[in-house]
C-alpha cells in the first residue's frame, strides 16, 4: 500500500515536517525531526532507484487524476539518480548541521533554519520527481525561496545582500522558465512533459516553440549559474552558513542541470536540441570559458569558501560541456560529473564548515598551520581537493576521463585541452590551501584549534570517502549515468 505511494511521500513528508519544525521552537528538537525526515527520504529515494532499475519508469498519478490532465510524477533512471543524490546529500548535511548551526545561528533562528532547509529539500525533490512542467516551476520556487532565506542567515551582513542578489536573479530565471512553459502550452495545449514531448514534433519548429526553447534555456542556465550568468553564486556560497553552502552547492545547481536535461531531451527531444538549434556552438564555448575563467579567478581568492564557489562554476562548466556534446559519452560524462561533483564539493564545503567552527573563519591566512592542529579535517580537504583536480582513484578522475573522451570522440581537441588545463588550474588553487595548512606555521595569536567534533567530521568524511570510493568502484555511478544517457537519447524521441 505504502510502497505504491512512495513517489509522493518523498515530497509530502518533508513538506509536512517543515512547519512542525517551526512549531517545535527548540533548535535541537527541530534538528532531530529534520534528520529523521531526511533519513526517511533517503530510504525512499534508494528504494525508488532500485525499483526503477529493476522494472523501468514509475508513473504516479497525483490524486488519481490521469495524465495529461492530472499532475503526474514520473520517475525514470535519470531523475531517480538525481533524487538519490539530493536525498543523500540532504541526510548527510542534516546529520552534520547541528553543531555547525548551533555555533553560527542564534537559538531563536534555529528552528526556522531547519524549516527552511526541509522546505528547500522538498522543493528540490519535487522538481526532480514531477512530470508536469508547471508543477516543476512551483517546486522550483519553493526551493528557491527557502534557499534565499537560508543564505540570508549567514553571520556576515554581506549574506543579506548576497541573498537579495540571488533573489533577483533567481526570480528572473524562474520567470523565464514560466514564460517558456506558457509558450509551450500555447503551442501544444499540454503541460505533461511526456505529452509535450509527443506533441511538439507535430507543432514543428514554429517561432513560439523556438522562443520557448530560448526562454527555458536561459532561465535554466541562470539557475544553474552557467558562465556568464553566474554572478549571484560566489557571494551566496561564500556568506551562507556552512551547512547551507554545502547543501546548495551539492544539490541546487545539480537539480537545475537536471531541469535543463529534462527540457532538452524529454520535452524537445534529442533531435531538436542537437539539430534545430545548434546548441553545441553556444553551450560548449560558454562552458569552456567558464572552466578556464572561473578556475583562474578561483586562484586569486583569499576566502576559501569563495574560492570553492568559483570552482563550482568551473565544474558546472564541465557538466555543461558534456551535456553540450549531446553524445552518449558526453551525456554520461555530464551526469557522472553531476554525481561526483555533488559528493566532492559537498564534502569540501562540510570540511570548511569544520574549519570555520574551530578557526573562526576560512580566510587563507587563518588556515595557516591547521594541518597540524586539525589533521583529520585538513586531510579530508586534501582528498577532496585531489578529486577536484581529477587525480586517479578519485571520483573527479572518472568524470574527466569520460569528458576528455567525449571531446576526443568529437575531434574537439581544443575542448579536451581546456578540460585538462582546468585540472591544472584546480591544482593551483587547491594547493594554495594545502600549502597554507601544512607548510606555513600557525600565527602566534591563533586560537587554540582542536579537531572538529565527530558529529561533523563523520558526515564530512562520508562524502569525502564517497568521492574516493566512486573513483575506484564506478559501476554504480558510471553504470547508472550511462543508462540515463541512453535513456535520454533513445527513449524520448
Amino acid at each position, binding site marked *: 500500500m505504502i510502497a505504491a505511494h512512495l513517489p509522493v511521500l518523498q515530497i509530502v513528508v518533508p513538506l509536512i515536517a517543515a512547519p512542525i519544525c517551526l512549531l517545535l521552537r527548540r533548535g535541537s528538537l527541530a534538528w532531530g525531526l529534520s534528520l529523521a525526515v531526511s533519513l526517511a527520504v533517503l530510504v525512499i529515494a534508494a528504494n525508488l532507484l532500485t525499483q526503477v532499475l529493476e522494472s523501468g519508469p514509475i508513473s504516479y498519478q497525483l490524486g488519481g487524476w490521469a495524465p495529461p490532465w492530472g499532475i503526474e510524477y514520473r520517475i525514470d533512471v535519470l531523475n531517480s539518480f538525481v533524487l538519490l543524490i539530493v536525498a543523500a546529500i540532504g541526510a548527510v548535511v542534516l546529520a552534520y548541521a547541528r553543531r555547525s548551526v548551533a555555533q553560527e545561528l542564534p537559538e531563536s533562528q534555529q528552528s526556522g533554519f531547519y524549516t527552511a532547509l526541509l522546505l528547500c529539500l522538498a522543493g528540490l525533490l519535487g522538481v526532480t520527481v514531477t512530470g508536469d512542467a508547471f508543477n516543476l516551476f512551483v517546486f522550483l520556487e519553493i526551493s528557491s525561496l527557502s534557499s534565499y532565506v537560508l543564505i540570508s542567515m549567514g553571520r556576515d551582513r554581506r549574506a543579506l545582500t548576497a541573498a537579495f542578489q540571488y533573489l533577483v536573479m533567481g526570480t528572473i530565471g524562474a520567470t523565464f522558465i514560466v514564460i517558456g512553459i506558457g509558450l509551450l502550452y500555447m503551442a501544444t495545449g499540454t503541460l505533461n512533459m511526456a505529452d509535450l514531448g509527443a506533441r511538439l514534433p507535430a507543432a514543428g519548429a514554429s517561432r513560439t516553440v523556438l522562443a520557448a526553447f530560448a526562454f527555458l534555456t536561459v532561465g535554466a542556465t541562470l539557475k544553474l549559474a552557467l558562465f556568464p550568468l553566474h554572478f549571484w553564486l560566489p557571494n551566496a556560497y561564500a556568506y551562507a552558513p556552512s551547512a547551507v553552502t554545502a547543501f546548495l552547492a551539492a544539490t541546487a545547481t545539480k537539480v537545475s542541470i537536471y531541469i535543463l536535461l529534462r527540457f532538452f531531451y524529454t520535452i524537445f527531444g534529442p533531435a531538436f536540441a542537437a539539430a534545430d538549434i545548434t546548441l553545441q556552438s553556444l553551450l560548449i564555448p560558454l562552458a569552456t570559458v567558464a572552466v578556464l575563467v572561473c578556475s583562474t579567478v578561483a586562484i586569486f581568492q583569499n576566502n576559501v569558501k569563495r574560492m570553492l564557489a568559483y570552482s563550482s562554476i568551473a565544474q558546472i562548466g564541465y557538466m555543461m560541456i558534456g551535456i553540450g556534446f549531446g553524445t552518449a559519452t558526453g551525456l554520461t560524462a555530464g551526469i557522472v560529473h553531476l554525481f561526483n561533483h555533488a559528493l566532492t564539493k559537498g564534502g569540501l564545503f562540510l570540511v570548511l564548515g569544520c574549519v570555520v567552527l574551530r578557526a573562526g573563519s576560512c580566510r587563507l591566512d587563518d588556515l595557516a598551520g591547521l594541518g597540524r592542529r586539525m589533521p583529520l579535517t585538513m586531510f579530508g580537504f586534501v582528498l577532496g581537493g585531489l578529486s577536484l583536480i581529477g587525480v586517479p*582513484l578519485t571520483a573527479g578522475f572518472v568524470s574527466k576521463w569520460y569528458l576528455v573522451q567525449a571531446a576526443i570522440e568529437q575531434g574537439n581537441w581544443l575542448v579536451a585541452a581546456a578540460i585538462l588545463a582546468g585540472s591544472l588550474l584546480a591544482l593551483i588553487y587547491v594547493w594554495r590551501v594545502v600549502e597554507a595548512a601544512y607548510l606555513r606555521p600557525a600565527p602566534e595569536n591563533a586560537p587554540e584549534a582542536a579537531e572538529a567534533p565527530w558529529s561533523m567530521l563523520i558526515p564530512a568524511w562520508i562524502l569525502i570517502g564517497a568521492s574516493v570510493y566512486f573513483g575506484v568502484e*564506478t559501476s554504480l555511478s558510471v553504470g547508472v549515468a550511462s543508462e540515463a544517457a541512453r535513456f535520454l537519447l533513445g527513449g524520448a524521441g
Partner: protein
Amino acid sequence: MSGDGAILLAILIPLAGAVPIALAGSRPNLREALTLVTAAALFIVVLTLVPEVAAGDRPRATLIEMLPGLPLAFEVEPLGMLFALIASGLWIVNSIYSIGYMRANKEQNQTRFYVCFALAISSTMGIALAGNMMTLFVFYEALTLSTYPLVTHKGNEDARRGGRTYLGILLSTSIGLQLLAILWTWQVAGTLDFTLGGILDGKVSGPVVGILLLLYMYGIGKAALMPLHRWLPAAMVAPTPVSALLHAVAVVKAGVFTVLKVVIYIFGVDFLHLSGHGQWLAYIAAATILIASLVAMTKDNLKARLAYSTVSQLAYIVLGAALANFWGIMGGSMHLAMHAVGKITLFFCAGAIYTAAHKTEISEMNGLGRVMPFTFGAFMIGALSIVGLPPMGGLWSKWYLAMGALESDQILLVGVLMLSSLLNVAYLMSIPVRGFFGKVTGSPGSAEGAAVVIKEAPLACLIAIGLTASGCIVLFFAPDALVSLLRPLVSP
C-alpha cells in the same frame, strides 16, 4: 606462493606496513624495526616472483574494474621484475641508511617520513607490476603525491618552493600531456593492456605517431627530459635519504621505466623503429645528456651536481628507448639497474658527508677524504660505475647503448656517449680527488678544529654505503643474469 597472490602482496605489504609504522610513532626503535621488517618481507615476496618470470611465465592479477574495460590489473614481465627488484632491494638499504641519517641529524616528523616512504614504495611496486597503462598511470600519480610530503619534509620556505616546482611539473605534465596521450591511445586502440609488440601498430600512422610519442615522452615528467627537468634539482631540498630514493630508486626510475614500457608495450619496438620517429627523441635525449652534464660541472653544491648528473643519466635510458633496437632497449633497461645502484651510493655518501662534517659545497671538501676514507672510497666506486669504467656495472649498460647507436648508424650519438663519459669523469671524479689529495683551505683555525672533530658517519649509514658500493662491483661480474632476464623484451 602463487604468482598473483605475490603481486598483490607486493603492493599491499608496504601499504599495510605504513599503518603499524604510523602507530609506533612514539617509539622510534619499534618504528624503525617495523620498517626494516616490512622492507625485508617485501623483498622476499618480490624474490618469489623471479623464478616464474625467468622461466617465461607472466603472473597476472586483476584487482577491480575501475572503468568499464579498464581494470586495475597487474602483470609481471621482465622489465617490471627488474624494477621491482631494484626498488624493493634498495628500500632495505635505504631504510638502514635513513635510521642513521635521520637520527644523527635530529630531523623532525620522522614518523611521517617513514610512513610516506612506505606509501611511495607501494606506489612504486604498483608501477613496476602494472598490467596496463591505466594502472601504471594511477600509481604514477600516487607516487608523485606520496613523495610530496617527503620533498617538503623540512617545511620551510625553501621546501615550500621546491615542493611547488616538484608537484607543479610532475602533475601538470602527467595530467596535461600523459593523460591526454593515454586517452588518445584508448580511443584509437580500444585497449591499454601492455602487449609485446605494441598496441598502436596499424592504428595510427604518419605524424600522429610523432605527436603521441611527444605527448608520452614529455607527459612522463619523471623521466626529466629537458626542458622539463627542473623539478629534480628543486626536489633537492629534501633530506638526503629522500633524495636517494627520488633520484636513484623510485621516482626517476619510475619515469624512465614508464618510458621503456611505453616504447616496448604501447608503441612496440619494431613499430617505433619503422616509423622513424625515435630519431628526434634520440637527439633530444642526446642534448639532455650533454647539457645536463655541462650544468652539473658548474654546480658547487654536491647534491645539485648529483641531481644534474641524474638528469643526464636518465637521458641515457631514454636514448636507449628511442634507438628502438635490441641493443638500445637492453642497454636502457640495464642502465636502470646500474644507475640506481651507482647513484644511490653517491647520494648516501653526500648524506654521510653532510651528517659527519656538515658540508654541502664541493669546494669545502678539500682533504675531507683523509678523515672519511671509507665514504670517499665508496664515492669513488659509485662514480666509476656512473662513468662506466670497469670493474663496475655501469660499463655494461654503456656498452650496450653504444652498440645500439652503432647499429642504427648514429655515429654522432656514439660521439655524444663518449663525450658525456669524459664529462662524467670531470665532474664526478674531481670530488674524491679533492677529498683525498686536496689541500685544506680556509682559515687555519677552523680547519684544524674540523680535522679533529670530523669522523666517519654513523655506522648505519656506513653499512648502507658499503652494501651499495659492493653492489656496483657485483653487477660488473653478473651481467649475464640481467641479460637473460631481459632478453624476452626484444628480439635481436
